[in-house]
């Protein structure tokens, strides 16, 4: 069974937010509008943060880290968020009751809430991804719909899923090739190789969430501020 993971090289990331916009276009993430944005309700599955410190600034693109032991799943009272066998933490929009317990439990604040009815059927949307109603939590799904389409194509051609055939929108569009994506359980894959690099570190390693988005940074000596 594949174990999908991502490696983001912070030395290459230029903070241009191409991944953010690609994610929004691919997953029909709504632009919440001026009033709602000033109230701090921007929904941005992949969000680029800036870590300021004395010696330097570092851009940190933060998707959902698809933890192997996710603190957000344990607390959901209605099984609306779960970790599928392939390691992707999924969200069932039809079952979520909007209690937002998973938002409070996530140490990386990677879950977003539809405070109002932000998104309607509009032209130019991606038909593969459902539009979320108001009152439910949504999060990065590693472009799960792309995995399903790639798997269908592979099955139709009676072959296995080739590495690199399933890549989320952010990894596909990153102009400085900072985001690598693939199957962590496949020892030879580029992601697994990069994950073993001496520059590799995981965000919030001491929390025991075992995140599957691994960051590379030359000067990891500078731990979080």
């Amino acid at each position, binding site marked *: 069974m594949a174990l999908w993971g991502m490696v983001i090289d912070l030395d290459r990331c230029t903070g241009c937010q191409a991944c953010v916009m690609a994610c929004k276009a691919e997953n029909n993430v709504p632009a919440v509008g001026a009033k709602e944005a000033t109230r701090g*309700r*921007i929904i941005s599955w992949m969000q680029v943060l*800036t870590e*300021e410190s004395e010696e330097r600034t570092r851009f940190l693109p933060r998707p959902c880290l698809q933890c192997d032991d996710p603190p957000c799943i344990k607390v959901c009272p209605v099984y609306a968020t779960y970790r599928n066998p392939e390691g992707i933490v999924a969200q069932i929009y039809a079952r979520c009751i909007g209690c937002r317990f998973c938002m409070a439990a996530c140490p990386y604040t990677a879950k977003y*809430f539809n405070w109002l009815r932000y998104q309607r059927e509009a032209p130019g949307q991606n038909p593969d991804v459902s539009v979320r109603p108001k*009152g439910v939590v949504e999060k990065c799904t590693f472009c799960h719909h792309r995995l399903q389409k790639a798997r269908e194509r592979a099955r139709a051609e009676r072959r296995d899923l080739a590495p690199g055939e399933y890549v989320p929108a952010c990894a596909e569009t990153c102009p400085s090739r900072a985001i690598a994506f693939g199957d962590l359980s496949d020892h030879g894959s580029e992601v697994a190789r990069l994950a073993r690099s001496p520059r590799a570190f995981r965000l919030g390693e001491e929390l025991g969430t075992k995140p599957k988005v691994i960051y590379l940074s030359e000067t990891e000596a500078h731990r979080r501020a």
Partner: protein
Amino acid sequence: MPDPSLQRDAALFAPIAQTGRGFYFTLVVLGIAILWGAVAYWTQFEYGLGVTGLQQPVSWGFYVTNFVFFIGISHAGTLISAILRLSKAEWRRPITRMAEVITVMVLFIGAGQILVDLGRPDRMMNIILYGRYQSPLLWDATSISAYLFASTIYLYLPLIPDIAILRDHLGKHRFLYAVLAMGWTGTPRQQKILNRAIAILAIMVIPIAVSVHTVVSFVFSMTIQPAWHSSIFGPYFVAGAIFSGIAALIVAMAVIRRIHRLQAYLKPIHFRYLGYLLLVMTLLWFYLTFAEYLTGYYGNGPEEMKVFWSKFTGPFWPTFWGMVALNFVIPMALLVRLQHHAVGKTVAASACIVAGMWLERFNIIVPTLSNPRLPFPETMYWPTWVEWGETAGSFGLFILFYVLFVKFFPIISIWEIREGREVGLKEVEERLLTYLPDGTEPEPARRHTKVPT
């Protein structure tokens, strides 16, 4: 034919017998508050939670604070009356029912807060159909329903004899009283069954009450957020609950005492004893708070300190220092010497504590959510009229339930007062003897020891 013993306790029937103009005025005021709450919730139901002040990192705010606050107040009732009943403290007689009523009424409001806080209330059934017991929210649901059921029975059982009296002597609501009196005729056998049941319940209610607020604290301490994930939360919330419970009880007692002129039954000695209990709880609360923050400060973890400084010197300093003042400084000043104006002092201290404890819950929930681990931009959570409206509506509803209860049932247990008069005095005397070395005879009391009333 007025029974002589009833005549003495006529004051206890007064609230039920006549309904003065004040009653209708309070109904109107409460109606307005509840209407504001209803309009607020309708707007939120219509447009979504966006009408409140909640935002991305601060996903919980007023509603969860209210939830913890009201469940906290519910500890006033059964816990205190159960402990006093078990310890056979004679001064409990006029207080127990008042406390139990607070519990039962406020539990409905507390549990309601969670439902108000849901983003999709129309999918409430999902909790029943697809419930997952691993989530602390469902632990809450179980323990709160257990506590609600237990405290309802614990309120109802001692009420049966009084309802029987009302059934026999009061003209109004005959059918209601007849049904609720369960055919009580005061026979010794029935008395025995009732006392046995009340004794069992008194024992059972205490662990349930403690479990309720521990489980409410688990909603926060089970996550790994800074300043939430600590083992002190269980005892801290239970102590805070008892603390705010007693304060709420004292306030309720003072209000009822003034409105229904029950000064004869709720004497300063009750307020003084509860005041001393409150003082002990203030110290206990301060001790636990001090322990929690010292541990965080000394450990000096980066995330912990971010939340710590945001409370001490950051944007949350007013609510934090307000809480410390209202919960510790003012109550200590008032409750230390209760010789004179005991009632005034304890009620003032209690009002401060109730407000302080609301702030304490706010201080636990919002600062931690406002300071996420990763370097997100600063945000400030401000409640909107919807949240104020819902809070006002909740208080209005709680007080409305309380006032209606006082209108239909005696707020002070008549038969316990009577039992106290006839049986209580002798029984206490014998019990005191059992404490002294065997064979000592009661000497005549010396005059000069002045007993505070």
